[in-house]
């Protein structure tokens, strides 16, 4: 869970920094792609052996969605489409919030 959140956070932060024109396009794109690549096996493992008490269905949906958002963001960086990226970023944040909530729900039980 933590590593999934870590890479979601990375993608978010990289997107934000790019919107502020503080990081080069190539770096941002690579970081987004890297986050996506890193998320794939993490998501796979998480769904293969989900933590006890978690809403697996919701987790699966959210993780799949966020990966799609990140992939889209990477493409938008290439197209230099800031407004569209901004809206993708908002959706990513929403997904991230859900994952965070799911993670927090199971934490006290551990």
């Amino acid at each position: 869970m933590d590593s999934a959140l870590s890479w979601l956070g990375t993608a978010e932060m990289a997107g934000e920094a790019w919107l502020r024109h503080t990081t080069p396009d190539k770096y941002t794109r690579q970081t987004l792609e890297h986050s996506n690549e890193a998320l794939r096996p993490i998501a796979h493992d998480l769904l293969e052996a989900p933590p006890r008490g978690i809403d697996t269905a919701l987790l699966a949906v959210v993780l799949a969605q966020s990966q799609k958002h990140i992939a889209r963001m990477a493409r938008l960086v290439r197209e230099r489409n800031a407004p569209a990226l901004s809206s993708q970023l908002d959706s990513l944040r929403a997904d991230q919030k859900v994952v965070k909530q799911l993670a927090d729900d199971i934490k006290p039980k551990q």
Partner: protein
Amino acid sequence: MKKILQISLGIVTSVGGFLEIGSVMTAAQAGAAFGYQLLWAILLGTLCLIFLVEMSGRLAAVSKHTIVEAMRERFGFPFFFIVLIGMVLVAFMVLVAELGGIGLSFQILTGIGFPWWAAPVSLLVWLLMWKGTFGLIENGASLLGLVTICFIVAAIKLRPDWSSAASGLVPTMPHMDKAHYGFIAVSILGASISPYLMYFYSSGAIEDKWDESYIPINRLIAGLGMTFGGVLSMAVLVTAALALRPRGIQVDAFDQAALLTTTALPKWGFYLFAMSMLFACFGAALEISLAIAYFFAQGFGWNWSEDLEPSKDARFSLVYTIIILLAAIPLVAGIDPVKVTMVSMALTAATLPLAIVPFLFLMNDPIYMGKHRNGWLSNSVVAIVILISFVLAVISIPLQIIGG
């Protein structure tokens, strides 16, 4: 006046020489994963390093021997050979990590992958050693390394809560992830207490022809320089704790670390980080390659000096040429420099006794040191920190391997 210049130059050197990929990545990981809780590891490592660097300079100034020379003479060839194998293997891994760090800095700046950079970067490092002098490497590389001060600026701009930061200076155990905590602590200690720095420093004292009149200067340089260096590392940790931790970002990759300064320094943060890492790793790569060549040359009694033409100390020059060449190979093959960094830092901590225990013997040797022998304070501080690092390493490295 000349002395003041020397002191300030020496301090700049140590500040510039302190930060490298190991200390940045370990401190960033620590801050991102555990907040301020691991600040004590940097404090402890820096304290130990101050003593060790002071001792390396004092040994050279008093006995006119570098650490390696004295070690070979006192403990004989077979023991020297064992230390040689251990130290050179670990230093070689650190060199791979530093060259990789330069490549990664170029990668985030240009988008061209680090394996492509390995060959040109190694060539550049080698060329500087081949053509440059000791002074150029020592002062040039470390002046550029001063960019790393941006980490202090970043940390202050994020307005840390000083009292909770201060409480991180006292070691505590976390509630979870104990194995990971231990491993990062070990890596931080390994990153701070780098034996190659001692070999480099004591050889530098010989290259600069120090004598006993340099003892106070040496003390000042070691104390202030390493303190600043430690503060820089702490600044990285604090920045990571404030910029990355709230977002749940753990630093497993270099592009994650690159986000470190983008919050505090929105406009230039990213580029400052890239430049800092570039220069810091570059300086460290030079120092390590030199330290390895010094190790061979001094142990075998060859002619050595970075100020000579390569043909005047052929074997010395051959060693660094081969080492740099070899270090480029794993990078070209695409090995992950961040992984190499973490492993080599932990291994450094685990092999510390091999480097430091014989050194302590030398520092208490009346024949070499006369009345400038170590006092009980230096002996106990160094012995205790080395023992802690070793025990932590022996416990946490297997745990980390088991835990993946």
